[in-house]
């Protein structure tokens, strides 16, 4: 998926927009902003976000660089995002309140490709990975496609994230909501039932790797939206690479974040730390 598949150019340079809607959903924080100047993003794309004021000054004097955040929903010149706080960058983004200015660059990256005719789309996600899948679900439903959504979470607290996709089946690690176990167990059951599907996936690296392995083993195509630490988001720093099948490295920001499962090297997770 490294060709540019007709993506619309992003405005060159950052722009400041105002936050105009905040919502807490359990451990997640959803916020919206008005972005009349920006092109309409597609599911899978992301923005580099910075608080326009006081970005920095957190633990260890961070954050300093912008943070990559998937678009959750878009329309009518509005964008929304969902954040899970894991460090100083997401922490600062979650502190922003209505009226604060957000600095953004984007939309960036490629996007999920539409399912081939006859293939049933299955969305399979984990944790904060629900964001691009929620947007994909909306796109697919708008096109009249039937969607199967499978979402995995740590526990009941996080499982409220399932609300982002209507009708999603849920798995939790601790069994407190839905299936007790891995979301990929739900995926295997679905594929058992009917393998003529295409899988769209986003979530923690271990989950994505399981989806990759299932896709490779079963021949069911899968599009994986990857995460990687990013400094720039537009191909300038070469920092966000992932190892691909031929042993070389590919930039997640410009040749991703969406990759086809069999494009990844089998040991693509090797350089990753357990988070």
């Amino acid at each position: 998926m490294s060709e540019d598949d007709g993506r619309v150019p992003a405005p060159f340079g950052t722009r400041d927009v105002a936050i105009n809607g905040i919502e807490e959903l359990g451990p997640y924080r959803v916020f919206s902003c008005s972005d009349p100047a920006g092109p309409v993003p597609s599911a899978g794309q992301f923005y580099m976000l910075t608080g326009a004021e006081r970005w920095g000054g957190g633990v260890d004097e961070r954050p300093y660089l912008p943070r990559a955040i998937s678009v959750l929903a878009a329309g009518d010149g509005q964008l929304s995002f969902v954040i899970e706080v894991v460090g100083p960058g997401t922490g600062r983004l979650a502190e922003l309140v209505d009226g604060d200015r957000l600095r953004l660059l984007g939309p960036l990256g490629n996007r999920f490709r539409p399912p081939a005719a006859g293939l049933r789309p299955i969305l399979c996600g984990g944790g904060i990975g629900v964001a691009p899948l929620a947007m994909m679900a909306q796109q697919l439903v708008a096109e009249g496609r039937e969607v199967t959504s499978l979402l995995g979470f740590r526990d009941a607290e996080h499982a409220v994230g399932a609300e982002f996709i209507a009708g999603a089946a849920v798995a939790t690690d601790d069994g407190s909501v839905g299936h007790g176990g891995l979301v990929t167990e739900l995926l295997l059951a679905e594929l058992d039932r009917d393998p003529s599907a295409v899988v769209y996936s986003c979530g923690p690296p271990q989950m994505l790797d399981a989806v990759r392995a299932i896709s490779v083993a079963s021949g069911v195509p899968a599009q994986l939206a990857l995460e990687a630490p990013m400094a720039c988001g537009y191909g300038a720093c070469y920092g966000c690479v992932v190892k691909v099948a031929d042993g070389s490295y590919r930039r997640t920001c410009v040749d991703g974040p969406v990759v086809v499962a069999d494009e990844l090297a089998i040991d693509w997770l090797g350089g990753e730390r357990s988070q």
Partner: protein
Amino acid sequence: MTVDLCGIELAHPVINGSGTFDVIAARRVFGAAVDENFPFSAFVSKTITLEPRLGNPPPRLFETPAGLINSIGLPNRGVVGYLEHDLPELATLPVPLITNVMGSDADEVGQLFEALEPCDEIAAIELNVSCPNVKTGLDIGADPAELSKLLAVVRPKTSKPLIVKLTPNTANVALVAGAAEASGADAVSLINTLRAFAADPTAPGKAWLGGGTGGQSGPAIRSVALAQTSAVAAAIELPIIAMGGIANAANGRQFLDAGARVIAVGTESFRDPLAGAKIAAGLLS
């Protein structure tokens, strides 16, 4: 505000730091706007080596207080791939092209110079001397005598203006700059990243970066860059391209006041791809 850099006329004094802006990727992401509003008055390529390099395994980045450690590992297609794939795209740039190269010895550097020699699209060569000398473990550019020896061999192999990009990891950068001047360099650029270590926050005693150590850039190193720029400006007559943590026009102005002819923006472009243009505009106003 036009600036003469070794006979190359630049529209303003702001260029990019090698390896911190990929115009080919930027065109894919931002389209024609990149060329219409090109942020730099010259474009410096990332470092090209003789053979292709994959670069280091991830993670390659670590955010620090007011900066960034990178361990990218100079991924590039090698000089043949560069000439074949990249140069045609770079030839259409609206600004002069400076090609940055690195080799581990005089033989490699000489071959690189010879390969670039016929390309009229390349206005100047920037030689990155932050390459570790296999024998001493020091960067070649850390030792004035080593650098003189290298330049004595390779300088004759190019007719293009030659910019030597010094390493900051040395006891006295002015001595090294003096050696570059005496050995036929046409300009020097500085500073490259400071040798730095990122500890894995999740695994005590382990390196976070796939490449082991890395290089610190960003505002954290600005004061060191300013000190080295001043020291070099006091020691040599050559034009200086200065960089290191420049994040706004006021920062840039300080480097020009310290004796730089041209300034380069690196890490700040990651925060905003238009940083260079904004800084240039700020300097003009």
